[in-house]
């Protein structure tokens, strides 16, 4: 069992950003909060197997839903997750005994740690995405068994509470998105709760610890290319960002962006992106796609750069890292998070070496 201590926070935040594959929101926002919130002894990242063996009961997946960029302008009051869990308990008459992040990437990874500290609940080291993904149908629990996740409690920044129940994944997506869009742009959410035993085999395990590992491996002092290879990934390109295309402000939920990274002699790298970096092409040939992670790093500091922060002229290096193993477990799972799930008519291109999960 590993413990997340204050000294690990920088690595943890960087790792969570790497798992975001350019999306998932800025983990640093909750990272600052964690610096004061985290107890001296740290927070234990409880492996799911240990939790099940210890007889853990109901577990609530928690996370921020909506536009993560709005979060920086409309700051949380801090009690959203707590209120959502309380509402969930009232509505379902079940007691939430532990929390897990909905997605252990980007700000939601940090948020889960922060909420566990605040609420004094155990933090089980598993999540429903294993990386950053944009949609509810891309939750592993829903992909595995939609009946397990039909209830959600949402608390928006104004304090408004909403419970949605008996929804199928599409309805849940529609209802929650339209509510969030009209109620401040984002909301703290708690789902389920789900019995810990039902999580086994239906979640991505160990993602928080992986964030820590990745964050340590890829840091400003290391060679990102070498780290990527060591982690079972590959180096894609280094150079300047050119040809930035962002989606027109059409109001579409997920707009497509396209970036090219070029240097004087190497191949032209193009990255297709929505909320996350999705597919990378070298000279027009797709070389890696979701669910693998595509990470654009500041060449000098190796800090990950999110999709919405990438600018023309940025001096970057780009690496690909293995995505969560759970999603590559079967063809239907790959299809759920592959390029076609994002409207890119390509077969998934996975990394050849998948040493690290």
């Amino acid at each position, binding site marked *: 069992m590993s413990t997340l201590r204050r000294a690990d926070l920088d690595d943890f935040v960087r790792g969570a950003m790497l798992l975001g594959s350019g999306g998932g929101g800025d983990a640093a926002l909750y990272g600052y909060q964690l610096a004061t919130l985290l107890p001296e002894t740290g927070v234990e990242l409880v492996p799911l197997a240990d939790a099940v063996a210890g007889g853990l009961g109901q577990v609530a997946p928690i996370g921020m839903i909506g536009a993560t960029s709005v979060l920086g302008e409309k700051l949380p009051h801090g009690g959203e997750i707590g209120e959502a869990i309380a509402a969930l308990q009232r509505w379902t008459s079940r007691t939430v005994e532990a929390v897990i992040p909905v997605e252990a990437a980007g700000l939601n990874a940090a948020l889960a740690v922060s909420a566990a500290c605040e609420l004094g609940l155990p933090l089980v080291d598993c999540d429903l995405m294993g990386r950053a993904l944009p949609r509810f149908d891309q939750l592993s629990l829903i992909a595995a068994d939609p009946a397990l996740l039909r209830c959600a409690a949402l608390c928006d920044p104004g304090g408004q509470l909403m419970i949605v129940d008996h929804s199928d994944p599409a309805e849940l997506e529609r209802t929650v998105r339209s509510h969030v869009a009209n109620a401040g742009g984002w909301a703290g959410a708690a789902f389920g709760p789900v019995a810990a035993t039902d999580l086994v085999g239906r979640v991505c395990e160990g993602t928080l610890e992986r964030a820590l590992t990745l964050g340590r491996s890829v840091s400003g002092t290391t060679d990102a290319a070498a780290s990527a290879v060591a982690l079972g990934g590959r180096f894609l390109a280094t150079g300047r960002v050119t*040809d930035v295309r962002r989606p027109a402000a059409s109001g579409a939920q997920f707009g497509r962006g396209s970036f090219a990274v070029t240097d004087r002699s190497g191949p*032209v790298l193009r990255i297709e992106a929505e909320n996350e970096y999705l597919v990378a092409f070298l000279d*027009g040939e797709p070389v890696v796609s979701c669910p693998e992670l595509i990470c654009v790093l500041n060449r000098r500091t190796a800090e990950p750069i999110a999709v919405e922060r990438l600018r023309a002229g940025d001096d970057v290096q780009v690496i690909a890292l293995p995505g969560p193993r759970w999603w590559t477990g079967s063809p239907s799972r790959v299809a759920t998070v592959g390029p076609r799930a994002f409207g890119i008519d390509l077969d998934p291109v996975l990394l050849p070496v998948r040493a690290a999960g």
Partner: protein
Amino acid sequence: MTLLLTEALALPAWSGVRVLAADDAVAPVVVRHAEVLVGPQDPVRGQGALVAVVGVLDRSDWRIDVLIRRAASADAAALMVRGDEPLGRASALVASRLRLPVLGVGDPLAAAVALQVHLALPELAAARWVTAISTALGAAPPGVDGLVGAVGRQWQRPLWLLDSAGNAAAGPEWDGARAAAGRAGRATSVAEWLQRPVDRGAEFVHLAVPTDHPRGAYLVVHRRPTDDDSAVLAALQVLAPTVAGRLAQQRLAAERDARQRMSLLSELLQSGGRLAADAPRRMLDQGWQLDGWHIGVRIDVPSALDPVALLPEIRRAFADAGVGAQVVENGEGWAAWTTFADQPSQAALQTHAASVRRVQWLLRSNLPTVMGVGSVQPGPQGLVRSLGEAGDAARIAVTRTAGGHLVHVDRLGVGQLLLAWTRTDTFAPAASSLLTPLQGQAGLLETLAAYLEAESSLADTAAVLGVHRNTVSARIARAVDLLGVDLGDPDERLALQLACRSVLSHR
């Protein structure tokens, strides 16, 4: 056919086409055909194709890159997309890295179709040329001449059949020098020009006809500047076997006729002029006039040559020399004779002798001959006798270099007598010492001998030796100088001529 991309861009139908990306540093791009994709995801097949994407293509994201990649991987010549707005920097870079030109135009389908039509034009032209041959075949009169004429009319271009020496066997008036001059006068003769491959854009296009005729056969067409070389050549290739077929037919017919003539001639020779009842009629059918006075001529050639195939050349030479004669294949050569209605005068005989010499001179470059001429004799028996004399004379002429391998039987008696005498052991050393000053002087002895044989005629000597008359006169002057003799003195000249005969016969 193929087209350079730069040529395609010059097509009028391509006026709206813009080059969106190109790598100037690479070798010229060759377009073989056009391939139309409805959507950017359609598979790209064509090597050397202009890949035109008709569907709307978002050119600001991955699709254009992937399309460029796929087209480049399929070895396409170029990619054409809808709209002529410039490509993004990255996509242009990808195209340049993969060395694939990218073109933009408002209507890629129209541009692709225009290119395809342009690429198909030569095949169309070739088809027209070939179809014209088949049309001509339907209407052509029999024989090679008829065929060549009919095809030439269908093509509306002058068409000739030449032999390998460059002489026209069929077709209109032929100016060989002009064809051989070609571009920048590279060929020195028509014969040499025929051996060369056709220059691209040359005024005359030629092709060898596959035939076993000893003189070979070539088809030559005078193309127009707008004609496509390969179409013309393709049409000639189709025509050539047909011409070869007609040549073979013609040859068969010639051999049949030759057999008739030859058997008729041997009938005549064996009968000694006393003919069977129906023979004169059959000979008249051949155009032989047995009455009157005849001079026989025997023409022999090296045995490897084919008398039947070469008969037209002999006939042409006789016609060109102005000698009216019957020519019949006989043994390893030909028997020919000229018939006079009345006994010819001495002047007419002189003219005839000169003309026969001219026949040999006309044939000299293509056909080295040995000729014997008989005396003038009356009637059928006379013809047989004169032909016999001509045969004897020809046998003697084989050794007569000085006479140009032509011996007239009228002069044979004296000649042989003298020759017999000059071969004695007493005369030969004396003759040899008389001519010693000419030893080692190339050609002087031969020229002097020929000059004396030709009655001191510079022109005849020149004809016999095949050199210019000024050369002859210069050599004679030198020989006279070296020998210190006076050719005006009949004694000295006779001694000199006998010495020449003796020395040359001992060689």
